[in-house]
Structure formats: C-alpha cells, structure tokens
C-alpha cells in the first residue's frame, strides 16, 4: 500500500510543467492558435474550450474596415494550402467593442495581432489597443504576403526597424514582431527586430507562392499569388526558428506546418519558446488540444520536469 502511494506521489511530482514565459507574460502552456486560423465562438468551444490554450489571438485587424480579396481565396497544394484571404477586417472600433472583450474573458493571455497600411496607422492602432487594457501582448503582422500595398514590412531591414521601433516607443505592451520568411536570411531580420525593441518574435508567416488551374489556364487564386502554409513548409519554418535562435535572446513563437505534438516538439527543440497552429486547425479542430497533451506525454516519457528544459536543445554547440 505505502509503496503504491509513494509511486503515485512520484508520478504526480514529475507531471511536467508546461508553462513558458513570453516577454514577461506567463503562458500556461506553449500552444496557441496562429493568427487568422482559429475563431473563438460557440462552434469551437464545443470541440474544446479555448481557455485550455497557452494564449489566444485574433485574426489581424487593421485600423479601418477592409473587405478582403475576391475569391477564390484558398487553394489546396501538396501537404499545404495557399491563401489569399487579404485580411478582411471589421476595423479597430468593432474589434475593440465586440471581439476583444470576449477574448479577454477566456482566461489565457491575449495577444492582439495588428497591421497598419501606413506608419501612422501602426502607431494609432497600437495605442488604441493598449488603451483598452485588454491585451497582454501586441503582435505586429509585418509579413502578410497578400496585400496589394506592396512588399511585406519585414522583408527590408530598414523598414522593419522603423516600424518596430516606432510602435515600441509608443506603447508599454510587449511587442511581438511577426516575420516574413521571404527573405535571403531571416536571422538578419530577427536580429533587426530585436535591436528595434521587439520583446518576442513570431516566426513565420506564410511563404509567397501560387498555383495554376490547368483547366482554366489561369492563376488559381483571385489575387494571383498567395501565402503557403501547412506541413509542406515545416522544414523551412524549423530552419527559420533555429537560425534566429542562434542570434537573438528574445523568445520565439514558432509556427509553420504544426499538425500535432511531434511537429511542435521539433520547433521547441529548435529554439521556440511557444508554438502556434494555423492551417491544421481546419483539418482537425482538436490539433491544439492533441498538441498540448502530446507535449506533456513526451516530456514525461523523456524525463523532463518542464517544457523549458527542451527549448533550443537541438542546437549543436
């Protein structure tokens, strides 16, 4: 009897700690949705409660309402999909009034994803979100490949530095810079964002790609090009995180093709402090829950007492 009690105690004591620290904010576990790929509503609440997540996040909002792109907006590709949604947005006012309070009430830290079309918009939007007092972190989507306004903000070092430091200088909220992988060396961009004052990085947004409908002999997407996401891009995203981890000290939220615990663990070992699930939410709405549970099992089986012990462990010194 005593033996059994003893072993039960031990089992309890080794149940691993999943919490991580992102820029001073404690995430109860390292798994969150990627912006734009998970809605918080009654439907999703019925699968599992979003309060079980490491953090919650909105689909990127702009200051002013936007309709998004004409269809077709998505197209399946091998182990991935292209999207050219174009970020339809209700604008800041509606978001702050209707959506943000609902996110706030869930429990996990709230990351608010924003994007500006001009430098002034970035600043105004950041300030307005901060003023609500309902956000824990601000994510700057510097990397959407579907905007007709030109190349993403984070594909050019000077522009990246300018927008990050402008926002950082105006708000006290920790700022996450979400980077585009469509660059020659993303580690340079990670370093630039850190230098400009970003408190964390989200890596990566989608890769620019396209498909052609060979029946119609035209680009498959209404917007011609789109962003590639899904398991297809995982090896590229893991490398992006790994290479950034070598040069920055700020925490990284890793994403790109995570479809379950094994993929999430790859990112953690590569140096991500947390991970986000995008496209795979569409395929299996339980992906994030499975991922949290699977990370816990992996840590227990491999004898770790905290997920923090495996962050960056794959780096060859």
């Amino acid at each position: 009897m005593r033996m059994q009690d003893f072993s039960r105690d031990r089992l309890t004591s080794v149940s691993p700690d999943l919490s991580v620290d992102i820029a001073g904010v404690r995430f109860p576990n390292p798994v969150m949705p990627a912006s734009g790929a998970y809605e918080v509503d009654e439907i999703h609440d019925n699968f599992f409660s979003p309060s079980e997540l490491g953090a919650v996040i909105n689909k990127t909002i702009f200051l002013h309402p936007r309709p998004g792109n004409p269809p077709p907006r998505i197209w399946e590709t091998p182990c991935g999909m292209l999207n050219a949604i174009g970020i339809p947005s209700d604008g800041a006012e509606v978001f702050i009034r209707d959506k943000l309070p609902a996110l706030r009430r869930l429990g996990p830290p709230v990351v608010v994803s924003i994007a500006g079309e001009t430098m002034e918009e970035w600043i105004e939007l950041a300030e307005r979100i901060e003023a609500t007092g309902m956000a824990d972190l601000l994510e700057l989507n510097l990397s959407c490949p579907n905007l007709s306004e030109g190349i993403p903000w984070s594909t050019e070092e000077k522009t990246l530095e300018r927008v990050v430091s402008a926002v950082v200088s105006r708000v006290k909220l920790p700022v996450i810079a979400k980077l585009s992988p469509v660059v020659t060396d993303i580690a340079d961009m990670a370093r630039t964002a850190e230098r400009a004052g970003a408190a964390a990085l989200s890596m990566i947004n989608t890769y620019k790609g396209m498909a052609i409908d060979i029946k119609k002999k035209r680009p498959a997407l209404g917007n011609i090009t789109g962003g590639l996401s899904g398991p297809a891009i995982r090896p590229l995203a893991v490398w992006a995180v790994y290479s950034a981890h070598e040069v920055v000290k700020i925490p990284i939220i890793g994403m790109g093709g995570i479809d379950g615990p094994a993929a999430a663990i790859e990112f953690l070992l590569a140096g991500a402090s947390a991970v986000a699930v995008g496209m795979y939410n569409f395929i299996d709405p339980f992906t994030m829950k499975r991922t949290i549970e699977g990370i816990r099992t992996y840590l227990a089986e491999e004898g770790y007492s905290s997920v923090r012990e495996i962050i960056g462990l794959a780096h060859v010194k």
Partner: protein
Amino acid sequence: MAVPVYRKATLVSRKESPRGYVHLVIREEQIARTAGPGQFVMVRGWHTGDPILPRPFDIVLADPLKGVFRLCIKVEGKGTRLLSTLKKGSSLYVTGPLGKSITEFDSAGTALLVRGAGAAAVVFLAETLSKLKKPVYTVLSASTKSRLVCRALLEEFSNDVFIATDDGTEGYHGNGTDILDQLIREGKVDTVYTCGSHRFARHVKALDLAGKVKGYLFLEGNMGCGMGDCHGCAVKKDGQDGYFLVCMDGPVFRSRSVVVEP
C-alpha cells in the same frame, strides 16, 4: 443551432449511381440526429498528405433513429476519387452538421431546380417539406438521361418531378428553366431553391429581383475549414460591400443578396 462535432465515423454502405456518382451512408449518430436541410459536412478519408483538406458535401438525408446520414458525391478530382474508392467498413473523419439549416417552410409551393450533384443538396429539403405536407415540384436537369442524379429520392418526396435533358433522351428536351417558368405561370410555386448550375442561379435571381418568387441559391466555394476559421469561402454580397462566408452565412442564400458569378 446544432453545434458541430468532429468524429471518426464509419462507412456503412456505398453505391455508385449513376456512373460517376457515389452514395455513401455514414454512421455518426450525433450528426444524424442534429442535421437539418441545407446543412453539410466536411469529410476526410485520408491522413495528412495530398489531398490534405477535408471536402464539403451536402447531407442528402439523415436518419436519426439509425444514426446514419447519406452523401452523394460526384467524382471530380483527387479527394472525391479517394472517397469513392473507400470500402464498406472504412473510417472517415467528418465534421458537422455545418452551415445554417433551412428553417422557413411557409411557402405555398416550392420548386427545386437542380442539375448534376446539385440534386443532392435539395433532397433533405424535399423530405422536410413533404413531411410538412407542403407541395414540392422538382425540376431535375441533366445533359442526358443516364446522368440524372438522386432521381428516386426526389420522386419519393416531390409532388411532381419534371425531367429536362439537354439531348432530349428523357422528359423535356431543353432548358429546365422553361419548366420552372411554366410552374410559376401556373401559380404553383412562390419559392425556388436551385443548385448545380450557374445558369439556373442567374435565372432564379432574375425572377427573385423581378418579384416573381423568393429565390434561394445553394452556393459552393473553395472551403478550408467549413466553420468560419479560414475565410476562404467568400461570396460577394450584392448591394453592399464585402463578402459572406458560405460556410457560416450559408450555404443557402437568398438569391438577391449575393453576386452570382458569370
């Protein structure tokens, strides 16, 4: 509203009819119990790979007692080809019921104007109307006699089924819209649902705008998730800016509210 579930389900039977269309009967009790006319499911009969996304299909009929529902799938590309080769007893992943169920049944007479796989979309509605003893007139169109889909089911639930074939191999030799127009002229129908043909959709919308009927369209669109996550299934609003999402705001839309592609 019935909240959707995501479940591993079992294929209990499959049948091809006509050639190129497979009817799958799937056991998943909760979906069978809660589905309503106009709703759909997302189905995946493969693991991650190529194809990777689930595919949307209308619920043809649901049997809450037996815990099964039926799909009718036109074999088109990769995903439908894989689904069509599944054997009885296979597992598939299903999410549903999705989309808004049709809830207004107060029409004096309803016409269902359908073609191809579009016929699958309206069977559930025909059944519901027939249970409510509401008159249902179906115009079932195809290129040729052997391509008529869901004919027996539609005959079971409709007061009348009018066949129209492009080549005249059966029924009216010509356009199904002619029959619809005739039904309207005869005063039999004040409401029309259509699915499966852009031409039909344009015609119904014109009738709707002209105030001759209440027109409804079953719309499609490239779907990633079927539940509002991806914003992929956009359809342009008519008369105002912006887009509806087929999966959340539809899949059935009042014809005057949306832009019908040419």
